[in-house]
C-alpha cells in the first residue's frame, strides 16, 4: 500500500521532470539554435538547423515527439557535435556511476561504524576531549569542497609523492584519489549525523529498559540502538546520492576522468541544449529513483506508521 503510493508519487515527479527538461530549451531567452551555432552562422544555416531539429513545429507536436523518443533512449542529437545524445551517455555514464557508487560505498562503510563508535565512546559526556576532536575534525573535513580536496590530493600524492596517477581512468590505483576526494566530506558529515542520532537513541527510554535487562553491550548497540539510529541516518544517505553524482562532475574535471562530467559542463557552456536536457533528465531520474529505494527500505526498517506516512 505504502509502496504503491510511493510509486505513484515517483510517476508524478518523473512526469514533471520530463516536462521541465523538455521545457528547458523553450525557457531559454533568445534562440537556442542561434546561441549554439554562434554569431557567425547565417540566418539560413540557423533556419535549416531549426527545421532539422523540428523546433519550428508546434509545441505540442514537439512534446509528443520528445515523449515518444524517450522509451527507445532517443534523446536527440547534439547541436554542437551532431553526435547522438544516447551515445554520449553510454560512453560516459558507466565511468561516472562507478566513481559515484564506489564513493557511496566508502561513505557508508566508513561513516556508520565510525559514527556509532564515536557515540559509544563519548556518551554521557565522557571523553569530552575526544568528542571535541571528533566534532571539529569531521566538521572541518565536511566543509572542504571535493574539487579543492582533489586539487590538494593531486598536488600531494600524484605530483609530489608520485604514488598514484595524476589523471585518467585506468587501473585500480587511478580510483584512489577521485574516490577519496569525493567521499571525504560526505563521510565526515554522515559520521557526525550517525553519532548524533546514536547519542540521541542512547538517551531513549527503551535503551534504559535494555540496560535494565543487562544485555551484553554488543546486543545493546547492534540490535537495539543501531536500527533506530540508522533510520534517520539512512534518509541522509539518500540525500547524499545526488551530491555524490554532482560531485563527480567537479572531480572528473580535476582528474580528467572520462565520465559524464565533461559532457555536462560542455553542454552548459556551449549551450548544447539537447545534451543538457538529457543530463537534467538523467540526473533527476537517478535521484528520484534512489530516493524511492531509500523510502522503501526505511518503511521496512521502521514499523511505526507515523514515520512512513509523513
Amino acid at each position, binding site marked *: 500500500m505504502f509502496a504503491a503510493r510511493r510509486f505513484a508519487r515517483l510517476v508524478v515527479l518523473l512526469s514533471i521532470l520530463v516536462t521541465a527538461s523538455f521545457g528547458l530549451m523553450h525557457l531559454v*531567452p533568445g534562440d537556442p539554435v542561434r546561441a549554439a551555432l554562434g554569431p557567425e552562422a547565417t540566418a539560413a544555416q540557423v533556419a535549416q538547423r531549426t527545421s532539422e531539429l523540428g523546433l519550428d513545429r508546434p509545441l505540442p507536436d514537439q512534446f509528443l515527439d520528445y515523449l515518444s523518443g524517450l522509451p527507445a533512449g532517443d534523446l536527440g542529437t547534439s547541436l554542437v557535435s551532431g553526435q547522438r545524445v544516447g551515445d554520449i551517455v553510454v560512453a560516459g555514464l558507466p565511468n561516472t556511476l562507478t566513481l559515484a557508487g564506489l564513493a557511496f560505498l566508502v561513505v557508508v562503510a566508513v561513516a556508520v561504524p565510525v559514527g556509532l563508535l564515536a557515540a559509544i565512546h563519548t556518551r554521557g559526556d565522557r571523553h569530552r576531549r575526544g568528542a571535541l576532536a571528533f566534532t571539529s575534525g569531521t566538521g572541518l573535513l565536511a566543509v572542504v*569542497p571535493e574539487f579543492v580536496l582533489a586539487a*590538494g590530493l593531486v*598536488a600531494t600524492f600524484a605530483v609530489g609523492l608520485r604514488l598514484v596517477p595524476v589523471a585518467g581512468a585506468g587501473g585500480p590505483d587511478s580510483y584512489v584519489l577521485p574516490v577519496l576526494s569525493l567521499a571525504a566530506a*560526505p563521510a565526515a558529515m554522515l559520521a557526525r549525523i550517525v553519532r548524533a542520532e546514536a547519542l540521541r537513541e542512547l538517551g531513549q527510554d527503551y535503551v534504559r*529498559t535494555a540496560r535494565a535487562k543487562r*544485555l551484553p553491550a554488543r546486543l545493546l548497540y547492534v*540490535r537495539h540502538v543501531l536500527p533506530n539510529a540508522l533510520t534517520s541516518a539512512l534518509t541522509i544517505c539518500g540525500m547524499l546520492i*545526488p551530491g555524490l553524482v554532482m560531485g563527480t562532475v567537479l572531480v572528473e574535471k580535476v582528474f580528467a576522468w572520462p565520465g559524464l562530467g565533461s559532457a555536462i559542463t560542455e553542454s552548459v557552456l556551449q549551450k548544447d541544449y539537447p545534451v543538457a536536457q538529457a543530463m537534467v533528465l538523467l540526473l533527476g531520474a537517478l535521484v528520484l529513483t534512489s530516493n524511492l529505494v531509500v523510502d522503501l527500505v526505511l518503511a521496512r526498517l521502521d514499523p511505526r506508521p507515523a514515520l512512513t506516512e509523513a
Partner: protein
Amino acid sequence: MAIAIWQAVREWRPMRGSVGEPRGRGQGGIRWRRGVVKTPTGAAGLVMVTALLVLSVAGPVFWSGAARAMNTEAIMLGSSSAHPLGTDALGRDILARLLVATRLSALTAVGSVAVGALAGIALGSLPAMLGRRAARATAALIELLLAFPPLLLMIFLGLVTGGGTGGAVIAFAGAMAPSFARLTQTLTLSVTRSDYVASARMLGVSRPRLVVRHVLPNIAEPLLVNLSIAVGMAFMAISGLSFLGMGVRSPDYDWGQLLNEGLTRIYDTPAAALGPGVAIVFAGVAFQLLGEGAIGAQADRRPARPDDPAPILASKPSVAGGDRGSATVRAENLQVSFPAAEGVLTPVRGVNLTVAPGEILGIVGESGCGKTLTGLALTGLVPEPGVVRATRLEVLGQDPRGLSPRQARALLGRHTAMVFQNPGTAMNPVLRVGSQLAETAVVHHGMSRRAAGARAVDRLRAAAVPAPERRARQFPHQLSGGTQQRAVIAMGLMGEARLLIADEPTTALDVTVQRQVLALLRDVNSTTGASIVLVSHDIAVVAETCHRVVVMYAGLVVEDLPVDVLRSGPAHPYTRALLACALDMTGVRDRRLPTIPGRPPGPGERFPGCPFVSRCGHAGERCATEPPAMEELGRGHRVACWHPRTGAP
C-alpha cells in the same frame, strides 16, 4: 557536493524537534548571540568571519593595483618571496588577485543566500499566514520542490539564466530556497501548534500579529544559525560553479575561477591552485564554526565534574532495621550527585533503606525528592554523568557498583527487573514485543530462540495480556498503554526475578488501567515472592499497594513506616502534610484544602538542620541547626524528626 550535504543537515536538524518547544531554563532568544563568543568554536568563527569581511572591503582598495599590473617579464612564475603564489599568464600577482577576489566571492555568496533565504522563508511562512486550503497548497508546493535535488535545480537554473555571475547567484539561491522553505515551515508549525499560540488565538490575536509576536522570535534563532552555515556553503558552491566555468567569467574573477586557472599548472606551481583552495575552505570553515558556535551556545553549558564533591550532609547510618536477616536490598547513606554549571547537584543526599524478601516497599515523595534516582541507583542504572556513593550498598547480597559486566548480567540480569513510567517509550519501537521479551531468556538463561519465544508468550499470559500469542508478534506501538505496561512487567518476569523496581509504573495510565496494573504487581509479589520497590508521587497508590513505605524529602529519607502506621498515625510532620493534601473521595467537599507552604530545598542547596524546617508548623530552634537522625519509634517505624507527632493525622 557541498550543497547536498548542507541540505542533508537542514533536513536532519528540524527532525530533532528541538526548536519551538519550551526550553526548560528559559533562555531568551538574544542570549546566544552573546553566548557565541564564549564558546571556542563560536569565537574562532566570529574572528574568521570578521577577517573575511574586512578583507572583502579592504582587498580591492589596497591590492587592485597589484592585481591589475601586468608584467611580461614575470609570466607564469612559481612561488617566490615577491609573489608567494606566483604570477599568472599575464604576469599578474596571484596573491593580490586572490585578495581582491574576496569581495566578489563574498558578494555573490551573501547575495545568493539573501535572495534564496528570503524567498524560502517567505514561502515557508505562508502556510501559517493563510487559510487552511491555501496553506495545504503551499505545503504541497514545497514538498514538490524538495523532491528535486538542489543540484538539479541549480543546473536547471544555470541553463535557463545562461550562467555568468548573476546566473550563478540565482542558481544557488533557487537551489537552496526550497530547503529554507521547509525549515521555516517545520519551525513555524511547531510554534503554531504550541499552547501559547492557541491561547493567543483564543484572545483574538490576528494571524499576522501572531507571526510577528510569537512565531518569528521563536524561530529566529535556528534560522540565523542556518543562514550562517548557508553562507559558507554558498562560498563553496559558487566557487564550484566558477571552477567549472559556469559562474563568474573573465574579466571578472572569484576564487573558483582562480582555482580553475591554477589547476592547469598544478605540476609546476601547486601554490597557484592551493591558494584559492585554502581561501574557499577558510570561508566555509568560518561560517560553519560561527553557526556551530551558536548551536553550542544554546545547547551546552560545560558542567563541572563531581570529582571532588562538596561535603554532603547525611543522616547517620542507622543500624535499626538492618538486622532482618538477608535483605534483598540494603543501602546505607546512598548518595547520587551530578555535575552542573552551578556546581555539584546532589538529588539524593543520604538514603538508608532495606527491602526484605517478599516485601512491597513504597518510596513516596514530591517531584525532585530523589525517589526515582534512588530506584535507579539500586540497580546501577543512574545515567551518566551521575555518581553513586554509599557507605554500604547491597542488592541480593552484592554491591552492584563492584560487579563486572559478566557478574552483573548473571546476578542483576536474572534476578532484577525494572518497570518505568512511560510504557509507550520503554520498549524498542522497531522490534517485536515477543522478541524483546525472549532476548532476556536467550542471553541470561541460554534458552533456544524457540523456547524463549514460547516462554515470552507464557509470561505475557501471566501478566494478563489478552491474546498473548498475537501480542507477541506485534510491535509496541500496536498495543494500548495498559497492555504495553503489562508487557514490560512480563519482561521482568522472564527470569527468576527476586527484585522488581517499578518507577511510577501507573502515572501515565488511566485510573481503571492503573488499578489493573497495581493488582498485577501485587499478584506478581504474592505468586513469585519477588520483592517490589514501588516509586510513586501518589501516596494513595502507595498506601493501597505496599507493605511498608519510605517517605523521601529533599534527597533524604524522613520516615520509614509500615503501611498501617501510615494510615493510623505517621510521626513526621511532612508525612502527615502529604496525607493531608492528598485529594480523596470521602472528605467534606467544600472544605479549604490543606497545602504545604513554600518549596523544598533544591538539589544544589545546603541546609544545616532538618530539610523541612522552613515549611514545618512544629519546628523548634534545634530543627534549623542540627540534622535529626533516624530514631526508632515503634516496630519497623523510624523517623528523622526532632519533634515527632503522635496520634491520628
